[in-house]
């Protein structure tokens, strides 16, 4: 099948995959040729994690049309679950199996949390949903900050107070140490793993968006009552989008966590959720390829523009406001339509002239 006869969505998806693969090849080439600076090399895995996070959040915000401010919460749950599995298994199982297992568990646990949160939350609408997801993110952060977990010969112990009150035997091992989190992680994430995760996320989410379910989800976004009246099961489809989004956020969390030697809950706070939201808004809500590019660019740019570091978040804030007003303000939208209509009319007039001549 040639490029021209393809369905429009297929072609668009292939371009997205192409961009990711091209990025991978260029970076690999750079590292072979020794052109890579160490600060850029250190950014590669976080870039991949943020791309996955942005794409998965776009499913909730752009495709489903519900604002989630707790994406970092799912990332946190996934990161902790996955890292626990990894630290427990990597010594006595082959490394790839251990890593695969930690990704699966991280994604699954985040998905379960997505389900648990989604069932009550998705009954709410709009602003309420946003504030509850924010609350959920904060609950997760506080809870993980206070959680102590360990095991000894008698079994698993946990406490929400301090490590002493777990009552571990002297031979016990502390796994999660409250606000200190998990320490001594043997780094395992690689750039290749990150790219594979991005491709997997894209395959699943792009296919979901272009499927019957995806069309149902966009129908809910555009008009919930109309969608309901043609027999779309609103709760099920909302839940589906929400859970898929959570699963990939969890996996991105695992990827992110295994890139560092320690994991603390504080990293996954409200600011992280907002940062991911900025990627989604800047890339274009509902535009998956936009999320990929925006997340990658906005993670690399601050490193390149170090002198602008203090102003980074300030610029993001202004970008959020300006983008929203420019794209959504009724007056500006109609003004833009007028201008483009003017261009179109001119072009049509030119064409007519040509034909007449």
């Amino acid at each position, binding site marked *: 099948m040639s490029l021209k006869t393809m369905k429009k969505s297929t072609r668009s998806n292939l371009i997205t995959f192409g961009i990711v693969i091209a990025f991978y090849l260029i970076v690999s080439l750079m590292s072979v040729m020794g052109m890579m600076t160490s600060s850029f090399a250190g950014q590669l895995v976080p870039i991949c994690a943020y791309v996955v996070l942005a794409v998965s959040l776009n499913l909730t*915000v752009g495709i489903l*049309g*519900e*604002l989630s*401010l707790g994406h970092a919460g799912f990332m946190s749950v996934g990161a902790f679950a996955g890292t626990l599995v990894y630290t427990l298994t990597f010594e006595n199982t082959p490394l790839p199996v251990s890593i695969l297992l930690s990704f699966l568990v991280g994604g699954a646990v985040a998905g379960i949390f997505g389900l648990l949160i989604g069932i*009550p*939350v998705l*009954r*709410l609408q*709009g*602003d*309420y949903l*946003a*504030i*509850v997801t*924010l*609350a*959920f993110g*904060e*609950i997760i952060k*506080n*809870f993980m*900050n*206070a959680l102590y977990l360990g095991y000894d010969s008698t079994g698993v112990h946990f406490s*929400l*107070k301090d490590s002493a009150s777990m009552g571990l035997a002297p031979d016990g091992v502390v796994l999660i140490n409250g606000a200190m989190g998990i320490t001594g992680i043997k780094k395992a994430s690689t750039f290749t793993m990150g790219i594979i995760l991005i491709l997997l996320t894209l395959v699943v989410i792009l296919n979901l968006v272009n499927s019957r379910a995806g069309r149902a989800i966009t129908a809910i976004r555009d008009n919930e*009552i109309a969608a309901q009246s043609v027999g779309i099961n609103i709760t099920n489809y909302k839940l589906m989008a929400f859970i898929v989004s959570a699963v990939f956020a969890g996996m991105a969390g695992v990827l992110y966590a295994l890139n560092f030697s320690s994991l603390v809950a504080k990293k996954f706070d*409200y600011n992280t959720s*907002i940062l991911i*939201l900025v990627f989604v*808004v800047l890339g274009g*809500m509902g535009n998956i390829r936009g999320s990929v590019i925006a997340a990658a660019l906005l993670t690399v740019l601050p490193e390149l523009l170090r002198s602008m570091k*203090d*102003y980074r*978040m*300030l610029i*993001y*804030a*202004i*970008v*959020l*406001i300006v983008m*929203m*007003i420019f*794209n*959504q*303000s*009724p*007056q*500006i939208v109609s003004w833009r339509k007028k201008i483009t209509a003017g261009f179109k009319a001119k072009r049509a007039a030119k064409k007519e002239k040509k034909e007449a001549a």
Partner: protein
Amino acid sequence: MQFLTYLINGISLGSVYALIALGYTMVYGIAKMLNFAHGDVIMIGSYVVFFAFGSFGLNPIVSVLLSMVVCTILGITIERVAYRPLRGAPSLAVLITAIGVSYLLQQVAQLLWKSDPKSFKSVVGLQPVSMFGGQLVISGETIVTIAACIVIMIALTLFINHTSTGHAMLAVSEDRGAAQLMGVNVNATISLTFAIGSALAAVAGALLCSSYPTLQPTTGAMPGIKAFVAAVFGGIGSIPGAFIGGILLGVIENLSKAYISTQLSDAIVFMVLIVVLLVKPTGLLGKKINVKV
């Protein structure tokens, strides 16, 4: 007796939440939007008091009044520049803009005044009151906070129910289009709502920082979100609801800090929100609104 101390401190904290929640609930009721930046207006107000009273040594009442003026101007400006162009846009767009404004205020504060915490000098000069032979000590801040909250609440209720401007606000919150047809200036009414909410935020900021004397650019964020929880708890759009919700939330937070866990008190507050929304999504005093097709 210890329990009573926790309870009174909880009511004091709750009074601050109630004052902030008023701003949320009025704006939500009238402009139908969640003003995420409200918490950060509090922070800006507190900085104004900090400099006016702490650095320049102005009279505390003058400092708070100055802060109210600054916050009022700030609130009206935010509404005019960021929110008004989006009137009629999807609520998602408005919400994201509000988050942007909230971030903008925090970042500007960080650039201007750096992120290191400043120790805030209390604006309350009242001596602590000791009761039951010294077993129960109530600080001056607590008394002033609770008193200020009650006075403001009564004044606001009178204003809304007994003046024509107040009636205009009620009319806009009921049905914006119909109010406009009846000759109410909707834009002016919404601006006024933002002005009142922001002025109350300035008072709340001064009282909050007097009781919890550290001030940094993120100071307003958490109380802001919790006050929103309080507004939802009491029923968003309802002024007595904001009062009851605020007080209850403050008491819940302080008691869970004292008896359950300091670290988990925030989590407990947010769980209250989730439970409230599940059991009674309109809050304690809220009205149910049916969506018409």
